């Protein structure tokens, strides 16, 4: 019981509640940005112009082959010097989360688009549709069914990477927990925070499987 009272105290007076809101905001904005950015990368990745394809592949491999932690620190400390623009903590966090998660989503989008049989596009072309019409009316509606579960997975994955963003100085749940730890030396605050993140994750997973179930019913 003692622990629960302490946790409640950290939540209301220790700043964990504010931190939780910041974490939720980062996560929500990060999700939207990632879903859109992944689509942009996929379009570039599948373009007919080879330098664009090369750039997209280089970006994907580079972000997949380096730690998120180093990406965050680099964008926090080094990139602002390089390009001469200083971004706020929230903007940096969103930027890095999007660039990082977008990579994985882009690969899933591509797999979804490529899973649509070639004959479908050819049938569209035979009917005299333009390239845009073929994409929008033939490929996209079929691919989206395969892509939606991947979006769900990416969103769940984003929840695992969001706690990293305290490294760019964002006052999120992790940062607040660290401050509580510094003041009170009570390690149980990390147990509390871990439980909070996990509950959020389980909630998302449940929503995800409900959605998948619904989509199958509609099909």
């Amino acid at each position: 019981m003692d622990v629960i009272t302490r946790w409640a105290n950290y939540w209301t007076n220790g700043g964990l509640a504010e931190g939780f809101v910041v974490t939720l905001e980062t996560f929500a904005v990060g999700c939207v940005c990632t879903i859109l950015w992944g689509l942009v990368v996929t379009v570039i990745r599948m373009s007919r112009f080879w330098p664009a394809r090369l750039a997209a592949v280089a970006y994907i491999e580079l972000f997949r082959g380096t730690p998120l932690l180093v990406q965050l620190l680099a964008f926090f400390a080094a990139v602002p010097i390089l390009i001469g623009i200083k971004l706020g903590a929230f903007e940096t966090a969103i930027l890095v989360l999007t660039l990082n998660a977008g990579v994985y989503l882009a690969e899933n989008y591509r797999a979804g688009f490529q899973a649509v049989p070639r004959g479908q596009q050819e049938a569209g072309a035979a009917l005299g549709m333009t390239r845009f019409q073929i994409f929008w009316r033939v490929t996209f509606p079929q691919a989206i069914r395969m892509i939606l579960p991947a979006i769900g997975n990416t969103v769940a994955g984003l929840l695992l990477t969001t706690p990293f963003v305290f490294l760019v100085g964002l006052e999120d749940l992790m940062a607040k927990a660290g401050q509580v730890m510094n003041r009170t030396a009570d390690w149980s605050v990390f147990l509390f925070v871990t439980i909070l993140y996990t509950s959020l994750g389980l909630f998302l997973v449940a929503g995800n499987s409900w959605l998948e179930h619904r989509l199958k019913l509609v099909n």
Partner: protein
Amino acid sequence: MFLTTENFRTALTLYLERLPAAFMVTLTVTLGAVLIGMMLGLMLALARLAPVPLVARAAQIAIAVLRTIPVPPFFLLVYFSIVSTIYTIEPAYAGMLALGILLTPFMAEIFRSGIQHVRSGQIEAGLALGMSEWLVRRRVVLPIALRLMLPAIGATIIVTLLNSAFVAVIGAKDITGMSRNIINAYFTSELYFVVALTYFIMAYPMSRILALLERRLIVHL
């Protein structure tokens, strides 16, 4: 000019000097975590496939819950709970333990799907040849399942290598931690690009080799 200052050259020299020792720390954390994850994961996978419904259900719930735990809070939980209740522990070892535990559900799922995807015809063929059930397991199921699992395990190793950088936050002297000290002393944040490149040089060839293995090992199974 950027990247060519005296300061940066000093920092880079220092970085390259300390890299071998730091690399060993990163390697130890990564491989230790993978081993812990594989051992616990195998146990969890066997529990998941157990014929006792209660055990299987408990394992299933454990997998679902463990999968949703993010690295940073769990990591600090493991480190600080050990430090404040038992004894001081090297940050690197705490990191190894935390990453290993978080790998468990992924390893368990890899093992499970590997075991389940061995085609029943292969097993029946073994039995038809008069092999005992254990012999079929050892000679047929295990070799095929291992091949099926190898690419996924490899991918997990790469993810763990990249996640191991988090030990730097509690002061371990791995590649990231070591370079953070240099950067803070010399104010050369450009060095982070070199750090990123170092990880990339480790991770990229691994992923290429895996892709190759995947094509050669699985195609006929």
